[in-house]
């Protein structure tokens, strides 16, 4: 059993400040954007009245900020653990944060000052064809903001790539490909290095693709004669968007591999199925994105078939390796169920269960009656609220804890079930509305759609209250967080 805090995880004062910046920013943006989400759902339920332009601006901010902050906070998890095995630059880690904040200012200014409301996915050519509702400068500001955030991530991935190459020689060895077909696996090969390598390959390509399409859209904004192929732009945008949000989960799950064993008292080393799962996921996360384009019938049929089949196979590593591995690790382990352990285990349930409606929606016949209904936000809210964020909360709770058996406070004991129940009901109500054909991204709902919103709004309030509890506990604990060992 490893110690709760390992000497190699010690932080210098500067590193701790930057890590705290990531954590505090992540929690603050999360809470604010949850409140924005509640306002939208309450407006759909006619409890409050948001003018449609305000609703769509809020929707744009909610999407961009939630995806961005999920990526940023997850990258802190990857940085925290990966630096134990390779030498990462704290300066680059800080640069990622600074570029993110510059991007956030540009995005929020474009939305709330210049009235951009083109949706976070900036689906070409909507940003520059608003029918007079916002200016081309508003769209450009928004897209420049995304470029700034993307550059920050690319710098971070480049730094991680160079650091991994220095230690492991090439990315294949870091992924453990040399052990796929035989040989004695080095059990000490870190799962964190495997997952991080997958992320830098996949999201390096994903973010680069996003940057390219953003730059092309920016050129089009000011030189309209430079037109893009709408289908190609859509492919590039969804490739980027899909890979980016999935990479956030793959960065977040590093916390589970690293920390769950410290609470169960059992090791969780790499194995051949584990290495196969990550190698396959590296490929699958890159080629599955056509499942976002199943209703674009002019797409080559083989790509749509690939989108359906890979959607299914992508779930196998999640269900049969990571979630199953976590269950095996915890089963009859004498588990110490403090907040980090509870949250990390919840994240495994949320991820595994949340992929179910996603996989089913990847079937073309299903997609034709579910695509762009609330079924879609139903499944991604499921695995973001109950999967990704519990990984990140679990990590943050761990950082502020001195002992594995440290008792939870009364607030924590109330907050955890409130978050779980609220998250289940909120995501469940979105799914239920989706199966009733309620369209997504509608500011004003048809009368027959309205009854799905109130229960979801109440559940969302429960989620945000629990999140505030977590945030207050974590932020107040950060200055007193233990720092074992000597900082390098």
């Amino acid at each position: 059993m490893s110690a709760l805090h390992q000497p190699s995880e010690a932080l210098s004062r500067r590193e701790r400040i930057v890590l705290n910046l990531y954590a505090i920013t992540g929690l603050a943006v999360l809470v604010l954007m949850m409140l924005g989400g509640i306002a939208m759902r309450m407006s759909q339920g006619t409890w409050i009245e948001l003018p449609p332009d305000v609703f769509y601006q809020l929707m744009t901010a909610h999407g961009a900020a939630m995806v961005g902050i999920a990526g940023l906070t997850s990258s802190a998890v990857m940085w925290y653990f990966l630096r134990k095995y390779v030498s990462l630059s704290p300066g680059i880690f800080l640069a990622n944060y600074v570029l993110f904040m510059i991007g956030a200012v540009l995005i929020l200014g474009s939305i709330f000052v210049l009235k951009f409301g083109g949706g976070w996915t900036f689906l070409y050519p909507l940003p520059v064809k608003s029918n007079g509702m916002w200016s081309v400068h508003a769209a450009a500001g928004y897209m420049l903001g995304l470029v700034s955030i993307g550059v920050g991530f690319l710098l971070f991935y480049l730094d991680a790539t160079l650091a991994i190459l220095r230690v492991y020689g090439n990315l294949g060895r870091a992924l453990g490909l040399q052990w796929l077909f035989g040989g004695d696996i080095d059990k000490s090969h870190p799962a964190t290095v495997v997952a991080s390598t997958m992320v830098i390959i996949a999201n390096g390509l994903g973010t680069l693709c996003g940057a390219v399409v953003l730059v092309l859209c920016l050129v089009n904004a000011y030189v309209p004669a430079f037109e893009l192929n709408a289908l190609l732009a859509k492919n590039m945008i969804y490739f980027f968007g899909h890979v980016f949000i999935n990479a956030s989960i793959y960065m977040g799950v590093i916390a589970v591999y690293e920390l769950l064993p410290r609470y169960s008292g059992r090791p969780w080393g790499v194995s051949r199925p584990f290495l196969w799962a990550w190698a396959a996921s590296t490929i699958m996360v890159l080629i599955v994105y056509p499942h976002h384009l199943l209703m674009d019938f002019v797409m080559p049929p083989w790509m749509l078939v690939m989108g359906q089949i890979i959607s299914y196979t992508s779930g196998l590593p999640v269900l049969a390796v990571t979630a199953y591995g976590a269950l095996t690790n915890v089963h009859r382990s004498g588990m110490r169920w403090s907040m980090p352990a509870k949250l990390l285990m919840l994240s495994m349930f949320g991820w595994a269960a949340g992929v179910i409606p996603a996989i089913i929606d990847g079937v073309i016949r299903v997609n034709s009656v579910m695509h762009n209904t609330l079924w879609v936000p139903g499944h991604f809210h499921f695995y973001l609220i109950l999967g990704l964020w519990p990984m990140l909360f679990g990590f943050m709770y761990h950082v502020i804890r001195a002992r594995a058996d440290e008792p939870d406070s009364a607030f924590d004991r109330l907050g955890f079930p409130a978050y779980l129940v609220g998250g289940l009901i909120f995501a469940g109500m979105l799914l239920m509305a989706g199966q009733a054909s309620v369209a997504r991204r509608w500011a004003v709902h048809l009368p027959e759609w309205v009854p799905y919103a109130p229960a979801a709004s109440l559940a969302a309030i429960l989620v945000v209250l629990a999140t505030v509890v977590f945030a207050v506990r974590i932020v107040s604990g950060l200055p007193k967080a233990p720092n074992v060992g000597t900082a390098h």
Partner: protein
Amino acid sequence: MTTQSLVWNISLIAIAIIAVAFLYVAARSGAAAQYEGVQKKAYGIRRWFFWALVLLGVGTAYATLAEFPIPDQRAPSAGARVVDVVGKQWYWELSANQFTAGVPVEFRVTANDVNHGFGIYDPNGRLVAQVQAMPGFTNRLVHTFTEAGKYRVLCLEYCGLVHHNMITEFEVAAARQGGK
């Protein structure tokens, strides 16, 4: 049972099974046992679990793809009534708005400004078919209505600040007696 109901039920059952697995493990996590024994048993079960998932995937892929669900985009559908559809911010233009149940309709869907989503809702408010409307491309959607009544077309791809008002209607008459 509609596709939506089937999907909803399958999802609930699968999520419930996963929840039960987690609750079972959480309930049995207190009493410590030798890890090697637990691993050996768990990995034995996992082998079956993995191959069961593979079998399920192969079966599902065959059942849902053997007859490709998307019509041939290069050739018109034989015997179908052709309707041109154009999506514009923020209204639909349909070249016809009266159809007959039992007669296939081929919607040739495009857009002349931004992406839209051509979603057809039946008289019960249930989404029965959709396709993207995209500038520069024409998607062919073939659908045979089975129920008479008033249908609505809703935009299912976010297209700007009046997206939610992009609605139109058409009528489907009952099938002619004695065949299509």
